[in-house]
């Protein structure tokens, strides 16, 4: 018996009128086979019991300090990122496609970065417009002709996937700068193991707990050629950054020092950290500080978060910065539209994971199409992220649309547009009952000597009914994601 109900499709109208894909239930209302274990377990739990489990989970997060701070006028309060109890489940064969697709995509994007910061063959061949790349705010001229080991520019990538109404996954966005969320993936797993131990054991879920050591070996591999046992550090903007918990968490699990800019000193193009016993050399910096802020001498002068002289030390080959500066140009929202061509160009393959149809407003014909269909499209500013600077046409008022149209005409190159996609829905625990909410999927991919896709992901949830915005800054939450082991993969250890 199905305990969940299908989403109420009248809440939002997709541009194509399609009914969103439900992760748990078929159109006929039957429970998909990979969800039956969870469904049976939920059916045996009273709603009060569920609420109790939800409170236990929230307490676990609060106690661990998995919080972000909301600063008020007089005092500050700590909130947990809302976490949903019910895991999202992805069967092995679907994951196999995702894994292949993400590997292919990141390999091509790293080759693209090596090319545009090298010979620029792809620009000469006219596959991607030259000005689109060289004029992008995330393009870093300073990176030109710099050696990057294994051509691994984006060592950590967190791509945002969505499941379309037809059930196929597509890439909505590539995050190649400083993607975050992996600590929530790991913490959600700890929580769901506590909440549904029996179901978890019986489901043959793939393990994700090796992520920190894989990350460490990826980082070490970036300096292994010239330093036998490289000193790796995690660079954080500090305790007031909303992702500070994650920085500390990764540093702790990798056993690396968590440093701030003020702990570092550059001398003779070498980077050192101040320890109790003097200065100690650093070889690899896993930085969680944006490009702009890592070195006031090279990038933003007013930055107090970075280290003066860091980029020169990097240029001299005395330290590795991960991810490399300038990777943002490959996840630029306009460059995104060319990724299928980029994959084809470097690998001679068709993209395994499709893109979402994207209109580039810099092209006059596409701009007029966008202006004529503003009520159906999602328009995004090329340089913005986190759900800011965007217009969701179907949800916007006529006034908002006309204001956005003016902005579009004033600076068309700054915008792209996509159809409003109905993200798939997954059952969530809402007010003691079970109700579907829209979700996306953020897997994490590591690239160094080789590319590894972690068999897990952060499923972000738009907790507001009918909402399609999953960003935590806009009322989104998250939930654990169970990737089931197939015949060939190692099951849970």
């Amino acid at each position, binding site marked *: 018996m199905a305990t969940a109900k299908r989403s109420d499709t009248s809440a939002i109208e997709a541009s194509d009128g399609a009914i969103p894909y439900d992760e748990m239930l078929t159109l006929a209302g039957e429970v998909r086979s990979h969800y039956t274990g969870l469904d049976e377990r939920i059916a045996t739990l009273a709603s009060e019991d569920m609420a109790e489990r939800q409170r236990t989970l929230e307490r676990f997060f609060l106690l*661990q*300090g998995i919080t972000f701070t909301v600063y008020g006028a007089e005092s500050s309060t700590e909130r947990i990122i809302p976490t949903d109890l019910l895991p999202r489940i992805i069967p092995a064969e679907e994951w196999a496609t995702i894994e292949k697709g993400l590997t292919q995509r990141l390999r091509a994007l790293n080759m693209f970065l090596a090319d545009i910061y090298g010979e620029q063959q792809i620009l000469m061949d006219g596959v991607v417009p030259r000005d689109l790349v060289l004029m992008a705010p995330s393009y870093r001229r300073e990176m030109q002709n710099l050696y990057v080991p294994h051509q691994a520019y984006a060592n950590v990538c967190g791509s945002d996937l969505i499941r379309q109404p037809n059930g196929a996954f597509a890439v909505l966005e590539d995050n190649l700068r400083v993607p975050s969320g992996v600590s929530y993936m790991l913490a959600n797993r700890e929580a769901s193991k506590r909440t549904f131990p029996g179901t978890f054991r019986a489901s043959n879920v793939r393990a994700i707990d090796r992520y920190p050591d894989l990350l460490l070996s990826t980082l070490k591999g970036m300096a292994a050629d010239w330093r036998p046992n490289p000193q790796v550090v995690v660079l954080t903007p500090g305790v007031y950054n909303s992702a500070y918990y994650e920085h500390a968490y990764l540093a702790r699990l990798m056993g690396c020092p968590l440093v701030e800019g003020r702990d570092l000193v550059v001398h003779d193009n070498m980077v050192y950290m101040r320890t109790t016993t003097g200065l100690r050399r650093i070889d690899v910096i896993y930085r969680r500080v944006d490009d702009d802020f890592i070195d006031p001498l090279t990038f933003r002068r007013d930055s107090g978060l970075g280290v003066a002289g860091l980029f020169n030390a990097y240029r001299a080959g005395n330290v590795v910065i991960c991810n490399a500066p300038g990777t943002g140009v490959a996840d630029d929202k306009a460059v995104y539209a060319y990724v299928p061509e980029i994959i084809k160009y470097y690998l001679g393959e068709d993209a395994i994971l499709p893109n979402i149809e994207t209109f580039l407003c810099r092209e006059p014909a596409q701009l007029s199409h966008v202006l004529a269909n503003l009520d159906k499209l999602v328009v995004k500013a090329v340089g913005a992220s986190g759900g800011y600077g965007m217009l969701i046409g179907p949800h916007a008022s006529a006034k908002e649309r006309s204001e956005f149209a003016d902005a579009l005409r004033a600076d068309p190159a700054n915008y792209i547009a996509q159809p409003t996609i109905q993200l798939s829905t997954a059952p969530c625990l809402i007010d003691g009952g079970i109700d579907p909410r829209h979700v996306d999927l953020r897997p994490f991919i590591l690239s160094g000597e080789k590319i590894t896709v972690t068999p897990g992901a952060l499923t972000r949830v738009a907790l507001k009914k009918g909402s399609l915005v999953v960003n935590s800054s806009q009322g989104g939450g998250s939930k654990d994601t169970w990737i089931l082991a197939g015949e060939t993969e190692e099951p849970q250890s």
Partner: protein
Amino acid sequence: MMLARVADSLYWMGRYVERAEHMCRLSDVMLNATLDRSDAATQVARIVLAAVGDNDPDKAKSPYDAARSLALDRGDGGSITTSLSRARENARQVRDQITTETWERLNLIYLRVTGPGAAKAFNDGSSAFLHDIIADLHLFRGAADATMSHGEGWRFLLLGMYLERAQLNGRLLEVFFGDVRKRPITDHFALTSLLRMSCALEPYLRRYTADVRPELILEFLMFDEDFPRSIRFSTARIEEHLSAASRYVDAAHTGPERMAGRLKARLQYADVENIKLGEAGALLTTVLDECAAIHAAIYDTFVAYSLEMRLPA
């Protein structure tokens, strides 16, 4: 080897945890005194306020309010709430360096003391409220001891705790016996209050029986070798942790270690039998001055050293 900033945060975390526990006891003893004779309550309040450096004479007239503000006033730099917030803020800065078990203990206390229910919990049962904080701080110490590596970071944590303890208890003894302009405080109620504030009542009774005499109390709280809150015990631990932490720096930078050794010897080899109650003040002043000097030397040696001196060859 650890980051200088991290060592500094662990050290301050230790200081604030110790301060919070001490203030819990002061506040509790003050509140207990309000249950007895009113003049006793005023006297104890005056002692406590002097020990924490608050010279407002009006405050001693309302001991309950003074105790409450010592516990909950976030505007008061020395209150329990403030100390716990700062301890936790320092812990958050070094979240990667302390174990989850240790962090959880401290975070739990912080959440309860700063949470919306704290004021009500204090009003409903202040003694239980303070008692719970002390018990939780003991759990925190236990978690740190049982789960953290007893390496450099742990040593800085304990260094902060013992230095703070020596200074807080030193100041308390100064209020009782150290002011040359006043006669030492020797009445029975005040003396047992002193033992309670130092968490020393039971150990004292076991050692000296119920013979509550000021010179014996001074001897116990200053010079006892085994009582964990005596000044001698604290300075011995300061010396122990500082010499262990100094192992990693070269010989040119061992200033604080030598100062701690000297202070420890001063208490270890003091002529205990011949120290008179009226003469304790001079020694207490020396102890407090040297603690302050060690504190400054730790900062100069491990945290804020000049880079020119430490560049690799």
